[in-house]
């Protein structure tokens, strides 16, 4: 069966804008009994006021500490009682609330999140633990050098403050106060720019009615975008007596809305889409330099990058760094037909399998809408992947080589980045 036939059979998208600017998205999925919700609020870490870095993370935690008629415990217990599997993430532009449950509980869960958006308690007495937890998360990063390497790399790579990790600094977290964060909530939690996506066993008209009832009266001004400064970029070594050297490097590429987007993604698959991709083959299979090496695509609205990471024993760090840069550069010298074929199959297969999970679908819809102003169906994605030729991939790689590379290394010794100047 072709992908387009699959998609016609399984995909039904819905879209509605409430009068206050909130965007509702829906996908009806057959053969599932769950319904997942992704709520995207334009209050991410990039919007933290100067001096209050980490505020979005505290606010995310604080927003769950009671809403409407319920205190912290009652709110949490209500979600648990509905079998709601929920999670919260702070990204650059957004705080994202995800919740998956049996479809019969979706409307009750939506009611709880409407309370969170419109009637949060944000009480003085619950503030301090929220700040303390973010402080502890920040300290925990010292025990997770691989994760820290990727966060710091992103922070340095993107124009400031777009790559903000969301953890802040000990000083900025200490500066946060309940009034300052209530004010931040008032400014950032507003319907314009908020996306509510639901996927699974849903009744779309009923979802719209429920959303209108719960959120139709929500008011607030559209959010201004943050003022950006040039990225820090450059080469950074963080000294640590770790067992591995953690090596991260990043360079610019095209965003999701760019015409070369699919070429960029396919080039990324050739580089690091699987075990037969170049980085894994050359560094691990042939030379056993690393257990883990990968490169991944990441995009904000106006900026995107290829982010590579390798962990290796310190004595192999230099060779690993040089080879990683070398493999990225080799892409421009040519890509075999079978590499392109594998990249296509892998990208499409991942999309179809992701399409089986209601949570993954809700996330993908919200992300598409944020980046593109619309939702892409499986058929469109598949056709675009098939239509991208090997020449277009090569042209893209040559137009967007690994230039202006940002490097971050955590480990006992720095690496010599001279190869970047050659």
């Amino acid at each position, binding site marked *: 069966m072709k992908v387009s036939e699959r998609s016609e059979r399984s995909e039904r998208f819905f879209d509605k804008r409430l009068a206050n600017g909130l965007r509702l998205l829906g996908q009806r999925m057959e053969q599932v009994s769950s319904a997942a919700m992704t709520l995207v609020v334009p209050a991410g870490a990039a919007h933290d006021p100067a001096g209050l870095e980490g505020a979005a993370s505290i606010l995310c935690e604080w927003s769950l500490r009671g809403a409407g008629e319920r205190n912290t415990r009652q709110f949490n217990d209500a979600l*648990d009682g509905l079998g709601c599997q929920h999670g919260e993430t702070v990204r650059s532009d957004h705080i994202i609330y995800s919740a998956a*449950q049996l479809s019969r509980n979706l409307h009750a869960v939506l009611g709880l999140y409407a309370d969170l958006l419109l009637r949060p308690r944000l009480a003085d007495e619950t503030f301090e633990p929220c700040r303390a937890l973010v402080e*502890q998360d920040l300290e925990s990063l010292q025990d997770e050098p691989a994760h820290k390497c990727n966060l710091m790399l992103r922070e340095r790579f993107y124009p400031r403050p777009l790559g903000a990790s969301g953890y802040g600094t000990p000083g900025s977290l200490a500066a946060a106060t309940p009034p300052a964060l209530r004010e931040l909530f008032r400014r950032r939690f507003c319907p314009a720019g908020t996306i509510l996506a639901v996927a699974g066993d849903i009744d779309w008209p009923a979802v719209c009615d429920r959303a209108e009832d719960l959120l139709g009266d929500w008011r607030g001004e559209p959010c201004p975008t943050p003022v950006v400064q040039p990225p820090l970029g450059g080469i950074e070594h963080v000294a640590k007596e770790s*067992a591995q050297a953690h090596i991260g490097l990043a360079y610019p590429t095209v965003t999701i809305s760019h015409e070369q987007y699919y070429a960029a993604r396919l080039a990324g698959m050739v580089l690091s889409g699987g075990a037969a991709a170049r980085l894994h083959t050359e560094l691990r299979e042939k030379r056993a*330099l690393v257990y883990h090496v990968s490169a991944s695509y990441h995009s904000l609205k106006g900026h995107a990058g290829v982010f590579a990471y390798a962990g290796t024993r310190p004595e*192999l760090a230099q060779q690993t760094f040089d080879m990683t840069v070398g493999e990225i550069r080799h892409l421009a010298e040519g890509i075999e037909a079978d590499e392109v074929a594998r990249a296509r*199959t892998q990208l499409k*297969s991942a999309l179809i399998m992701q399409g089986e999970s209601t949570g993954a679908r809700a996330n993908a819809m919200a992300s598409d809408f944020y980046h593109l102003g619309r939702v892409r169906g499986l058929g469109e994605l598949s056709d675009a992947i098939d239509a991208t030729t090997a020449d277009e991939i090569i042209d893209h790689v040559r137009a967007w080589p690994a230039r202006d590379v940002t490097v971050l290394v955590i480990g006992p010794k720095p690496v010599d980045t001279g190869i970047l100047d050659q």
Partner: protein
Amino acid sequence: MKLNHTRLDNGLTIIAESRQTAASMAAGFFVRTGARDEAPEVAGVSHFLEHMIFKGTPRRGSLEVNREFDSMGANYNAFTSEENTVFYGAVLPEYQDALLDLLCDILRPSLRKEDFDLEKNVILDEIARYEDMPRYRVYEMLLAEYFRPHPLSHSVLGTSRSVGALTREQMLAYFSRRYAANNLTLVGVGNVDFDALVAKASRMCGHWPSDEAGRDTAAPAHRQGQRIVTDPNVARQQVALASPAPASQDDDRYAAMLAATLLGDVTGSRLYYALVDVALADEASMVYDSLDGTGAFMTFLSCDSDQAARVVEIARREMAQFQADGPAEAELLAAKNKIASGATLKGEVPMGRFTVVGYDWVYRKEYVPLADQIETLFAVTARQVVEVARKHDFGKTMLVALGPLEKL
């Protein structure tokens, strides 16, 4: 949804839960072998062998193995635990035959000397990677202290020394005994064609020899006590506790699962409210680890070192109180809803059902449809939950700590 199963003459079991409306299918081998089945002198061989399975056969080199998986767009991998080594792939249904061809072939690896020597370096790097993860180190410490000298105390990765000294001949001997046909289960889930699965496996695996793989199932002692490892390079104090729990084969495992959720789910549990909600700890969770013939409740705490004594005291108090009073009805119902909802979501994706169906068979030779599992879960009473806690006793703990503290 139905289960098909059969057994080849050589003892290889094949099972499949078919759901023809699924967009994908998952299949793979469960090998009943892991760190507990290793003699001390070959510590780490199960995991090393898992890596070597992907390094090729007489028909395929290692690069070809990778290329073929990638060409199908397979989501594939393998993992090794104390008791199982599992190889799997999820693909679109039209790739079932190709996936099986590859999986069956690689389960008879060449174990070439040059691949063995090279891959050893990858394992050593993987060991270094986990050394940089205090949360993993404390887990390994807990198993080691709690189960010692029982083989369940063995590290899955082994040590740089044990892996460094391992020879290809030792691995070959281990392979021929542990990867015998009668120690393997082939599992298919999702949009899978069972008849084709059996036909393919018969052709490719029917001649594999059987052996007396077995397993030493003597019960471990469940040691009590305390061990503190001081490491000033670890920023957050890590503490882990273990106490006895039902075995995988015990009927009260559902009650045990509920007890662990009630006490230590990452959100909304008693430990969560007592420790994380008030920011005394950044992690306070309990899991129920059901094993072959035994089991353990394991609790993981992460906190500021100067709070550790208080955090441990509160965690112990919560466990004792739970054991004394048991759960309230509303609390129990919420825990059931959480578990049922999680299982349902997982069950909607073939890859999610794969491990559940496989473990049900490997541990209990049973197939339980998801709906029946949920029904059994909801039938558990508060009385049964408190009884499982009392019977196994959270007070019988081994405590290990890793971080800045010298004493606790």
